């Protein structure tokens, strides 16, 4: 019973931070259809800037703002490289990703920063979680469940998802989706496409940075390698969610509301798969390796009847 509860708790607890990453990837890779690998860097830099700000005495809110700003800057740099310096989409994002990861040790000042025993909102939530666990199972048991943290995270995700849905229907949001869904937007947009790219990349990468901040809080620290492969996690979650939503709706193209719901659903499903596999075979496989295996298997199944190579994934 306790193992079953632990699996559910761990999966939902991990899914909160990852959902922010998937929503960010949804904006850049799905809406804008930009092969954006920046998230590996913006996730790391968001967490590192946040952790450094907290340890240097900044308030919790100020530190979160700094972390989000760092993600925003990563997205802006990618957009700048692409629209101003005319560097190709893929190369511009890879450059910023490497740049961010290379900067992370300088921001941290050491290899890792711990956040345990620091006064943050997360620690207050963890105290409530601890009290709830003791109330439910009595004191002296060897595990902790997180009802308060998961509830607060779910509330935050609902607000963000509604905001993202409203944004995707505005003129700017539809402009971003137009840019992604047309093969050649030049006749209609001309040089006006630039601001839409900037907006989507900045917004997407600040959401990923928010995921990095949450991850630093839940893990109790930030390190320079924590974002490695995070973009693949977002992509896998997105593919799982889209596939499920397509099966439910029985249609090949999803509207923004279905895409957002699919992203959240896919992240929860991904998180459950990872937790269950690691629970039973954690000695033989790690989460990154599992993510790659899942991605390859998913794409092989989804593309088995396709006549030609896909645009993005």
């Amino acid at each position, binding site marked *: 019973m306790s193992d079953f509860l632990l699996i559910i708790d761990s999966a939902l607890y991990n899914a909160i931070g990852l959902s922010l990453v998937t929503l960010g990837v949804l904006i850049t890779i799905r809406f804008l259809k930009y092969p954006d690998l920046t998230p590996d860097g913006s996730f790391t830099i968001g967490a590192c800037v946040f952790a450094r700000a907290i340890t240097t005495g900044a308030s919790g809110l100020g530190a979160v703002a700094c972390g989000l700003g760092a993600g925003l800057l990563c997205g802006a740099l990618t957009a700048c490289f692409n629209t101003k310096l005319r560097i190709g989409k893929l190369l511009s994002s890879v450059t910023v990703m490497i740049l961010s990861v290379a900067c992370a040790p300088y921001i941290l000042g050491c290899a890792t920063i711990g956040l345990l025993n620091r006064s943050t909102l997360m620690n207050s939530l963890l105290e409530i979680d601890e009290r709830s666990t003791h109330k439910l199972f009595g004191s002296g048991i060897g595990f902790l469940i997180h009802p308060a943290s998961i509830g607060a995270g779910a509330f935050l995700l609902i607000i963000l998802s509604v905001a993202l849905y409203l944004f995707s229907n505005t003129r700017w949001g*539809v402009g971003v989706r137009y840019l992604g869904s*047309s*093969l050649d937007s030049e*006749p209609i947009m001309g040089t006006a496409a630039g601001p839409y790219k900037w907006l989507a990349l900045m917004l997407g990468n600040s959401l990923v940075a928010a995921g990095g901040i949450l991850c630093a809080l839940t893990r109790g620290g930030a390190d320079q390698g924590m974002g490695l492969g995070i973009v693949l996690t977002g992509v896998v979650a997105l593919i799982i969610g889209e596939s499920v939503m397509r099966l439910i709706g029985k249609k090949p193209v999803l509207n923004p509301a279905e895409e957002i719901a699919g992203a959240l659903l896919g992240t929860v499903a991904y998180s459950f798969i990872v937790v269950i596999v690691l629970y039973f075979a954690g000695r033989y496989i790690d989460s990154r390796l599992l993510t790659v295996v899942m991605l390859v298997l998913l794409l092989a199944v989804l593309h088995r009847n396709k006549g030609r190579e896909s645009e993005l994934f």
Partner: protein
Amino acid sequence: MSSSELIDRDVVLTTTCLCKTYETSRGSRIELLRGLSFKVRLGECVVLVGRNGSGKSTLLRIIAGLESPTSGFVRLNPSSLDVAYLAQGVGEYAGRDLTVCEQVNLGRLRQAQVDAPRWSLSGPRAHLRAANLVRRLGMGIEHMLDEFVRNLSGGQMQAVMLASIIGATPPALILLDEHSSALDQVARDAIADLLQDCLTSRATSLVMVTHDQELLRRMPAKVIELCLPLYSFQGTGEQFPKEASLDA
């Protein structure tokens, strides 16, 4: 104020000594437009005709600012003139994952349209606006507003993009590149009426490429025929490319 100044204020587009030169892969040069100069006045319709490869689409792209001429210049009056351009190959630049309602309301992205909704492009007000805009095209697609653009036929896509760029307040200059090639006769007539209305309001001018003889008969237009490109080549006789390979 002299009468010539008054006339010039009426001119929205002036092209002067335009020339566009391309290098082919075999080293020869193709000279398009060859010093073309013309003026378009407010409320005037100019039709570009000519053989395939004579530079009609290139001329429209130059006017739209998507390509630069090799020599000569294009002047818009005023320089911030609201220009809408509908290119060939509508499937390439239609927003395939948008709904018809969103695509129509998105409109011309270069200049913001005052009447276009900003906060919700698929809400009730946006639906009403899109239905009114597509109804004028006589395609019967006003009941398909929630359909994805990718599911439309080529002709329907063409009509949706036309409704999108013309909008409720037509732009000052419309550039159309074979806008009716995939449309049936009923839709062609409806669109010809719509364009005629735009012209009679004298707030819009039109430059279009068309092979539609019926449209040419219906609309009073200034016709400009573009000559076939001039080829120039420097090299030996053996290297001289066959004419068939020089088609632009």
